[in-house]
Structure formats: structure tokens, C-alpha cells
């Protein structure tokens, strides 16, 4: 582990119990995030992105079947930490989460200012005046007029509400902010201005980010690194330039070829087939059924080969080209 590492995740699992069986939403995920780095977790619907965020933040539904793995944040091991301590020292304090669609989950009858100071007052016990002053600071940072502290959520546009939930996540000055699809419900122009804001915040505050998205173009708006998920697992993690210019995993390659580009004559290509069910994922490589380069070896679970210091690929084609 480099001293620049903030978060290290190893072999993380989150399985849900359902009537039809166990859903392996996060199934052996490993990655790390450095200080002031943005890692984008990219993947199609249902591949386990939100579950990954929930496991890291310990906001879990009741039907959890299993959570396991090792997670360290700045050297502190989190998985063995008691709930009580996790809530006091980590959740919303050192790591915060902007949940998917949370801009629509603001309490409609409470002024947004009051909602934004909640983590400070409840978790850190700040007096109201001090918390409000801090909220005003954060509002300015995220480009919302401080007059809006007194407004109700419904008086704000979607873009403004998204800035407010971002302010709420930043108010405790966490080291790591996890953003789950922060722009997917917004218009093109609003989306772009939120991405502008995130770039600025990253530069100004030195915070680390995990940005979750299903949109490849959006992912490139913030990513220092990209982790691509498929059926509960990370199939490739790489520096942004490596990932966008020379993806290694066959799924990464097909995904990049399926992205429509504004100024490209070549028509995007579909990826035939669909991801396997997470109920009883097939043995072996989960992408094998759709993979144009699959061979006998793929019937066995591929290891997560390390191609270089920062790049890992879960594919047998890279056996011998890197250590597992």
C-alpha cells in the first residue's frame, strides 16, 4: 500500500437474501483510491454499483445475507469496526455518500439549510449558529446562493437540489465522497455544470471521490481512474487514459466500441447478449458467454491479474502477463 492510498478495498462481498435465492450483488471486489483521486465505478444497470457504495458506507438493507472483505481508510480497518464506532467516526464524517436519486429524497417540508446542517448538529454536536455559518460557506462553494438556505426543496430546480445534496455531503469535510449517479436525472447542460463543479471541488478541496455512473462519457469528465464492473465484479481497473484509449478486458473493449461519438463516422456496435443473473452466476468468467475471445480456460474463474502498479484485469488472456 502506497502512502498516497486513502481507501483500500479487498475482496469485498455483499450478498442479499431473497425468496429466489442469494443475489451476489458485490462478489469479490478489490480496488484502491488515493488522496485527491477520483475513481469512477462504471457499469450497466444491475451490475452492483449502488450495492458497492452501500457496503462501503454501511447503509444496508435488512435482507443482507453476507458482507465481508477488508476495507481500510487511511490505515484504519473498517470492516471489523463496531456499528456504533463506524457511525461516530466514519459514516458522514470521514466518508459521505450522495445516494442515487437523493436530490428527490430531500424532506419537502424542511428548509434545505436545516437539512444540510443535520450531519454537523446530530453527529458532531455543533451548535446551530456555527453549523449554519458552515452551511453558508459550503453553499457558496457549490454555487448556491446563501438565500437558498431558507428555501424548501420544491422551490429549487433539479440542478440546484443536486447542488444542495452535494453541499450536505461536503459539510463535514469528509476525506472521501461517494457519488451514486449524481447527474443521470439531469439535463445535458445541468449535467455539464455539475461535472464542472465536481472538477473544481476536487481541485480546491483535495477530496477523493468515487463516482458511480453507467455513462461512459460522463465517467471521463472526472476520472483519474476507472473501475469497470460486470455482474458483481470489477473486470478492469486502470488509469483513465489507459482505459479510454486502450481498454484491456474484452468487455471494456466492446463497451468502448458501443459508445456513440459525436464526431465519429463509424457506427457504434452493440454487444450481443445480456449479463448473467446474479442469483446463480455461472461458474467461470461471467462474461464468457458474450466474449468473442473466450477459450477453454474461461470455464474457470479468472484471477484479477495485475498488469502494472495501477492496472488489473480479470481475464485469462492476461495470464502470464501479470501476477494475480
Amino acid at each position, binding site marked *: 500500500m502506497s502512502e498516497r492510498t486513502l481507501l483500500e478495498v479487498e475482496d469485498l462481498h455483499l450478498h442479499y437474501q431473497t425468496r429466489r435465492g442469494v443475489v451476489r450483488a458485490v462478489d469479490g471486489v478489490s480496488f484502491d483510491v488515493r488522496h485527491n483521486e477520483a475513481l469512477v465505478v462504471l457499469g450497466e444497470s444491475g451490475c452492483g454499483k449502488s450495492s458497492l457504495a452501500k457496503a462501503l458506507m454501511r447503509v444496508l438493507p435488512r435482507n443482507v445475507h453476507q458482507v465481508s472483505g477488508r476495507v481500510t481508510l487511511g490505515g484504519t480497518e473498517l470492516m471489523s469496526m463496531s456499528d456504533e464506532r463506524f457511525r461516530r467516526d466514519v459514516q458522514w464524517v470521514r466518508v459521505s455518500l450522495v445516494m442515487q436519486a437523493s436530490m428527490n429524497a430531500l424532506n419537502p417540508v424542511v428548509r434545505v439549510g436545516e437539512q444540510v446542517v443535520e450531519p454537523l448538529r446530530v453527529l458532531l454536536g455543533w451548535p446551530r449558529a456555527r453549523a449554519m455559518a458552515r452551511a453558508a460557506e459550503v453553499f457558496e462553494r457549490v454555487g448556491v446562493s446563501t438565500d437558498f438556505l431558507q428555501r424548501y426543496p420544491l422551490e429549487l430546480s433539479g*440542478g440546484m437540489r443536486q447542488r444542495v445534496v452535494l453541499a450536505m455531503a461536503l459539510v463535514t469535510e469528509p476525506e472521501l465522497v461517494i457519488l451514486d449517479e449524481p447527474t443521470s436525472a439531469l439535463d*445535458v447542460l445541468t449535467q455539464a455544470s455539475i461535472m464542472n463543479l465536481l472538477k473544481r471541488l476536487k481541485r480546491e478541496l483535495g477530496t477523493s471521490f468515487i463516482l458511480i455512473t453507467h455513462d461512459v462519457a460522463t465517467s471521463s469528465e472526472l476520472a483519474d481512474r476507472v473501475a469497470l464492473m460486470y455482474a458483481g465484479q470489477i473486470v478492469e481497473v486502470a488509469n483513465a487514459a489507459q482505459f479510454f484509449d486502450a481498454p484491456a478486458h474484452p468487455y471494456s473493449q466492446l463497451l468502448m466500441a458501443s459508445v456513440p461519438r*459525436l464526431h*465519429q463516422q463509424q457506427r457504434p456496435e452493440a*454487444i450481443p447478449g445480456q449479463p448473467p443473473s446474479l442469483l446463480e452466476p455461472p461458474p467461470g468468467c461471467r462474461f464468457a458467454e458474450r466474449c468473442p475471445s473466450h477459450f477453454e480456460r474461461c470455464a474457470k474463474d479468472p484471477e484479477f491479474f495485475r498488469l502494472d502498479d495501477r492496472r488489473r484485469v480479470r481475464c485469462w488472456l492476461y495470464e502470464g502477463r501479470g501476477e494475480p
Partner: protein
Amino acid sequence: MNERPVGTSVEGEGALLSVKDLHTWFELRQWGFLRVGAVRAVDGVNFELERGESVAFVGESGCGKSSLARTLLGLHRPTRGEVRFAGHSLGELNARDLKAYRAKVGYVQQDPFGALPPFLDVRRILAEPLIVHGVKGRSERERRIRKVLDEVRLSPAEEYLGKFPHMLSGGQQQRVVIARALILEPAMIVADEPVSMLDASVRVEILNLLRHIQTQRELTLAFITHDLSSVRHYAERIFVMYAGRVVETAGVEELLDHPQHPYTQALLAAIADPDAANATKQREIPGGEPPSLLHPPTGCRFHPRCPHAMAGLCDVDEPPDFEPRRNHYSACWLHR
């Protein structure tokens, strides 16, 4: 059906669909009766679509795309102006002709998950329009259902005929929606954001399929989207909408390579092809939000957000369509 009622003959000269001065306003009432005003969802739109042409309507949420689509389909009655199909004004069709018209124009609606009745299987979903439009023979219906399933590549048909929507993936559901839109052999398809709810890789599959069928059948396709990055491959012309109006229109390549209207320029500047360099670039984005359609801004509707707005002109007079380049129209005073 031997005799062809008016409005259903698609042969002939001139545009297949022509839209003139079209307005679709929704009365807004408080407590159900107090008139607050009108939402001007479509507010003065003109265009013509040729036979066999694929066009895209692009614009942000709430700019009136779906309202326009529904007006073209005869589901909303225009507040003013008219829609003519194969020379006949929709406003003048009687109930029977309107029904015949709906058979000639297929509709792929915005939300595939809400589009299919959950309690019917695929066979029944596809049989329904045939029954409604008088295809009596069961074997004839079965033949046409199998043919269209094959066309949307849900084959072998046996595997899908008995399935209910919840047993299908999002992409497969959307294929069924498309099959349903095609089964009466329409001359035109209106597809309202046919892929916005689907995953990236499935999107491409569905768009490629639609494009393929459109060229094979020589259909007219009006395709609504908010995603400019994919239109190049799926349409020949683009209409850019802002606040109930078409602000710019041209051929796809021409429009994407030489955008003229400041709004189109802003839209194009806001989206990017994936590239690691994006992460450090601040994009030029006009501030503000799309305007209220209840009280749209005077003059040019984009003027409150426009970096080039000229005081005394843009905020006062509505810009007409200029033709700054050949066959390329833009409603902006910069071209005067």
C-alpha cells in the same frame, strides 16, 4: 379493407407529413377550475417530412418533444395550426379515418417499462392492434405476428410468444414495443426516446435495429432524443427544440459540424466523447435553466441564457428563421 378511407393513402406527391404553425397548449387550472394560464408545450412549429426520411428531434427535458410527438399522432388536438398527413389535415378526419391514420403511424413511446400491459403475453400484445383494425383470421394474425417478431430479431418466435413483459429484459421489451408499432405496416414511426431507459450497449442494439427496419421498409421515422451524440448514425436531419420551438434545423452532418444557433452550440459544448483529458477541462456552459413554458421569455426564448444576447433586440423581438448556410435554418438574430 378494399376501399381506402381518406388519410390512409400514403402514395402520392409532396411531403408525407407537413406541420404548419403548430401550437399545442395545455390549460393549467388550480383546484380544477381556476385558469392559471397555458403551458405552451408546442408553440409555433413548422416542418415537412419526406417519405422514407429519418429525422431526429433533440432538446432538453420539458421542451415539448413528447407533446409534439403526441400531437403528430393525433393524441392531442392542436391549439392552433395543423398537421397534414399525405395531403389530409388531421383536424378534418372523422373517427373512422382517424383510426385508419393511427394504423399508418406507429408509436414507440418513451417508457418501455410502462408501455406494455403486464397481464398480456407477447402474442396477445401483438394480436391486439390486428384485432382492433379488423384482421379477422387467426392464422393470418399468427403469420403476421411471427413475421414481425422475426423482423425485430426476437427469434425463434416460439421462445417469446408466451412470455409476459416481466420475463423479458429491457431491450427485449423495447423490441416488442417496436414490433407492436410495426405490425400494422405503418408508413411512419414516431419513436419517443426509444432507448433513454436502456443500458448503453442495449441502446445501440435497438437504435441499429430501428434504423435497419426504417431503411428496409422505407419508413419515415421521427425519432425523439435528448442525446445528440448518437443522432449522426440514426437520422438524416435534426431539429433542435428549445422551449416549445424549433430553433435550428439542418442535415445531420451539417448541423453537428457547423452549429449556428447559440443554444445548439451550448448543447454540443456540453457533451464530449470519452477522453481522459475531459477530467481537467472546464466546459463553457450557459447559466440559468430552461424557461417556464407558462410565461416564456419575450423575444428570443434563449436570450436570458445566451452569451451573445443583444439588448433591445433579442429580449424584444422573436427571431425568425434565417438561413445562414444553405438548407440550414437557425432562429437567431446573429444571422440578420
